[in-house]
């Protein structure tokens, strides 16, 4: 997974604030309720939200919408190409690909937001502490963060799997764990920008305890930056969840799941059964695009 939002200064020798972090910080001061209404006027947001809504409906009511039972095998009509009866064709066991794509939305749509929320909560807490306390704590945690970032998330997932085994909860924890340092970095930068403002010195003079200052004073002020970070991470979470289920960490068969179905059937590509993998692949691509359109709109609205 590529981290598109990392600031260029992140690996600079002095760890200076990157331009992105500064933007995020600048953004933080400008969120007002009216801006949220602007979102609804952006066509990119509406398209993204529409696609996302479609998949959410599929995830919740999939079994009712699907034309066939996604688990029903019809071995006599295995590997049939898309037709009037089976719009997306059938898989090697004769199951309807369209039905599997519709019902397969469920897992990814449950795991993705949970993992992102976990990473955002942990990352925010860590980033607040790093930015607020600074000093040795910041230095030590910063090193560990750097070490985690040196490993691709897929590799970290492998290590987790080898250590504790594979399950849905494990996938959520792995992605949350990998996102934590990334989000912490953004939050830390935002906190550093707030650190010397008057309201913080006042709070400190009033003798408020650090936890209260961090969560009651700083947090509300950097919330918009965290929100942008959250939507950006959501897109990567889709990427990560799909990749992990392609690599075999998804729900066990025969549960329909886009990534797992692709992994199970992609050898059929060479035999010409392209519909078995192409349609789940396009489903993933459409979900990713939807999240990106929403992210882009949120960023535009907050920084306009």
């Amino acid at each position: 997974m590529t981290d598109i939002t990392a600031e260029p200064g992140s690996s600079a020798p002095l760890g200076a604030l990157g331009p992105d972090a500064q933007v995020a910080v600048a953004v933080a001061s400008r969120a007002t309720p009216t801006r949220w209404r602007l979102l609804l006027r952006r066509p990119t947001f509406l398209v993204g939200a529409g696609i996302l809504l479609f998949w959410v409906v599929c995830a919740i009511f999939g079994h009712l919408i699907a034309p066939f039972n996604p688990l029903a095998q019809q071995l006599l009509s295995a590997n049939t190409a898309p037709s009037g009866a089976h719009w997306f064709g059938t898989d090697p066991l004769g199951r309807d690909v369209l039905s599997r794509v519709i019902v397969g939305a469920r897992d990814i749509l449950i795991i993705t937001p949970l993992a992102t929320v976990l990473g955002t909560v942990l990352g925010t807490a860590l980033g607040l502490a790093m930015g607020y306390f600074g000093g040795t704590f910041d230095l030590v945690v910063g090193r560990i963060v750097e070490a985690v970032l040196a490993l691709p998330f897929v590799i970290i997932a492998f290590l987790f799997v080898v250590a504790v085994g594979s399950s849905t909860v494990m996938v959520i924890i792995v992605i949350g764990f990998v996102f934590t340092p990334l989000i912490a970095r953004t939050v830390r930068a935002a906190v550093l920008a707030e650190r010397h403002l008057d309201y913080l010195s006042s709070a400190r003079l009033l003798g408020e305890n650090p936890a209260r200052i961090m969560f009651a004073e700083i947090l509300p002020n950097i919330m918009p930056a965290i929100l942008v970070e959250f939507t950006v991470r959501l897109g990567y979470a889709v990427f990560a969840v799909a990749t992990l289920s392609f690599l075999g960490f998804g729900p066990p068969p025969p549960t329909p799941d886009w990534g797992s179905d692709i992994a199970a059937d992609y050898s059929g590509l060479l035999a010409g059964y392209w519909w078995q993998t192409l349609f789940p692949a396009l489903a993933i691509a459409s979900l990713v695009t939807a999240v990106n359109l929403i992210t882009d709109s949120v960023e535009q609205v907050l920084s306009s």
Partner: protein
Amino acid sequence: MATFLLRRLGLMILTLWIVSLIVFFAGQILPGDPGRAILGPFAAKSAVQALDTQLGVNRPLLTRYLSWIGGLLHGNMGTSYTYRTAVEPFIRAALINSVKLAVLAFVIVVPLGIIGGVIAALYAGRAVDRIISVTGLSLATVPEFVSGIVLIVVFGVTLKVLPVTAAAGAGAGDLSQFRHLILPAIPLVFVLFGYIARMARAGTIESLNSDYARTAVLKGLPRATMIRRHVLRNSLLPTITVIATQTGYLIGGLVVVETLFNYQGIGNLIFKAAGAKDFTMLEAGVLIIGVVYVLATLAADLLLIALNPRLRIGAQND
């Protein structure tokens, strides 16, 4: 300058040490013993114990860690649980294969990303910019296996112009090998493009707004000369660091691409080692990735210092 380099080197070793701790202890939490995992549930208890002793896994944790690290420092990565032979030859062969694929991806994506980012910056806020930025962001978040499948369907199955497996087979010529690597490289290019373009765009916009750019315009330089001589030189510096940091993520992408295209690289090796619970292979593979990442970051720092006189002076004062 020397202090700066020493400090970078120190931080590098520290990072690697933490990586080694993460890697080693992740492999040790697992309940159950490797001897049993290798020999299966029906093997005699004595045989399992003998194998555990041979593998050295029944020693205390700290002893095992020290002997593992000691071995690594002497270039001994240990014995594979699966193959029962030294790990190095597997790692070396896989690393060479992966480097070929990664280099091809970089050779394509670096110029492409920089050009895309610079164009986006020059037309900032206009349609061209929006298209490049949104396409880049979208491609960066489409998993490699998804774009890989679309590419296989279009170029391999429908048009039949490119081979769909990455391995060219024994005795294949360089050209044939290259042809086999094109399709696997493109998903990696897709993922990296948006990132590099975004950094090149940010850097270019920053230097377009700088005082020296304004001076260049005011003294009457043609726009093209101003951009080439004053803007690009400065704007591309951060991009270099970024490209280096992408090496780590690129390897993550390699796991997926190598699996999809059935290519015997380091990603595929780690994937199979994790599946087979071959800890020594897994640990060695992951640590090698850490080393490659840290070296790439160091190389980028050095390149940055060589290219940017201000940093050179800054580093001296450090």
